């Protein structure tokens, strides 16, 4: 690994990869935190705040390491608060609006079902710094997927209305799942270095997890194979700009302040 980082191109690939991990956690954490105080039942308020808290904690670690790898003196906060939308590298899936509580849960499940195997693979990364972060995050995310899968099952196989809402959420979000498994040169470089798994290698496991949960939830996997993409290379939906306008407000309006 050390030899690999000696070349600038590989450092750029690793930086790119770390931004993708950190930005997924940051943007999803932001979306989840929007529910604070508005969830359908008190236990869900607690669980959502807890999920958001885990994700923001992971953001600090991924973006902290990204700044270190980049070597330009940028901190996790600098990266979170002072980049514009085109510099963000998260999946489109995580920036989509919350919708109803069913859509929020379905988005969480589809993401968690990818996030967990990704982190498990990263825990064996050739880069010990990556492995260390993943080993911490994997414990949190194992709980996230347990909870989101359980709720998808219960609501899918609940009332007619809860079933219809969960199916609608799945149909809406499905075209945003394919992006998780696409590769570019940065992915290939980190995979070749044994830092991260090739994205496509996670597809089968994800499909198995999702198929089993959907079957138990009596939900039907959507037929279309079309995948929206662009988030991982900085081409986002219109929604991300508003997330950043809100999230970055204080840092932008009062630059250089200590908080």
């Amino acid at each position, binding site marked *: 690994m050390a030899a690999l980082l000696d070349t600038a191109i590989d450092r750029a690939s690793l930086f790119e990869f770390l931004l993708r991990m950190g930005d997924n956690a*940051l943007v999803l954490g*932001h979306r989840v*935190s*929007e529910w*604070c*105080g*508005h*969830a*359908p*039942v*008190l*236990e*869900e*308020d*607690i669980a959502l*705040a*807890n999920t*958001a*808290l885990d994700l*923001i*904690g992971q*953001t*600090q670690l991924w*973006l902290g390491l990204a700044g270190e790898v980049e070597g330009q003196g940028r901190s*996790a*906060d600098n990266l*979170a*608060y002072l980049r514009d939308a085109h510099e963000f590298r998260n999946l489109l899936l995580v920036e989509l609006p919350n919708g*109803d*509580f*069913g859509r929020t849960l379905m988005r969480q499940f589809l993401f968690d079902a990818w996030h967990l195997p990704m982190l498990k693979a990263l825990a064996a990364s050739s880069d010990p710094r990556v492995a260390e972060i993943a080993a911490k995050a994997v414990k949190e995310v194992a709980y996230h997927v347990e909870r989101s899968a359980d709720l998808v*099952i*219960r*609501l899918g*196989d*609940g*009332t007619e*209305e*809860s*079933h219809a*809402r969960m199916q609608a959420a799945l149909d809406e979000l499905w075209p945003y799942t394919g992006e998780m498994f696409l590769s570019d040169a940065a992915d290939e470089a980190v995979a070749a270095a044994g830092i991260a798994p090739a994205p496509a290698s996670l597809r089968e496991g994800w499909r198995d997890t999702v198929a089993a949960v959907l079957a138990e939830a009596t939900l039907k996997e959507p037929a279309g194979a079309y995948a929206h993409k662009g988030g991982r290379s900085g081409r986002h939906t219109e929604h991300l700009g508003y997330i950043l306008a*809100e*999230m970055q*407000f*204080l*840092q932008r309006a*009062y630059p*250089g*302040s*200590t*908080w």
Partner: protein
Amino acid sequence: MYAQMVRTDSDGVKSLDEMSPQERAFQERIDRGEKIEPKEWMPEAYRKTLVRQIGQHAHSEIVGQLPEGNWITRAPTLERKAILLAKVQDEAGHGLYLYCAAETLGVSRDELLDKLHSGKMKYSSIFNYPTLNWADIGAIGWLVDGAAIMNQVPLQRTSYGPYSRAMIRICKEESFHQRQGYDIMMKMARGTPAQKAMAQDALNRFWYPSLMMFGPSDKDSVHSAQSMAWKIKINTNDELRQKFVDQTVPQAEFIGLTIPDDKLAWNEEKGGYDFSEPDWSEFYEVIAGNGPCNRERLGARVKAWEDGAWFRDGLLAHARKKEGRRAAA
């Protein structure tokens, strides 16, 4: 204080001689400092008063998520965001313990929520004020949680066992909340001129509403005596308010902020500060529903509950199906 103006279900304090033998035995246990536990006999008025007080406290915790939740998505650093999320999560957790404590008195969480949503039960008046700048999050931790602690620390010794135990857990977390609030204020007060102005503005707006949290002055507080005899209220409103002012003034001075009260002065003789009373007409307006955010706060809770009906129904239906399948197998 998260429970204000809780009506005590009593016509005045009876002397031991006026009590029935059962009431007398009950009062003597309280006087000895024993805890009353859920299955034990208690006067109906004691039970009802406690339900009101604990319920109001629980409602305050969950409505209290909203003014702080207003800044989670705009917290200025990742660390501040994480701390605020943890704090709001604690508050939802406090709501949960308190609803559970109320359940031991024979009232369900759903019944209490119905009363909140229909306006029959209140939550603390403080949460009807808006959070307008980031320093308000500091002011809430420092002043609002500070005032809540003032009341809740003595309530750890309250006579009702489950309430006392809930208070012990809650107080541990509240002192962390207060410290993080003061830390935000300190950073702001010692920051740029714009940050200092935000901090002062937050203090100006939250000072009197915080003093109101202790409830009306003792001379206007009609139901306190019985609650104090039952040890479900430990100190009077004015005692706690004085203690709060005495604690807070030096903290404000230390970070260079000014308490918005021209009459504030140290009184050597009483060993405490003289200070201006809040505008009680404003307090009664807020209690009556005319605070700046009453409609929004209650509206947000009602909307969350109504929008979530399908979710709760779905979970129940699934549990029934599962039970049915188990029975059939």
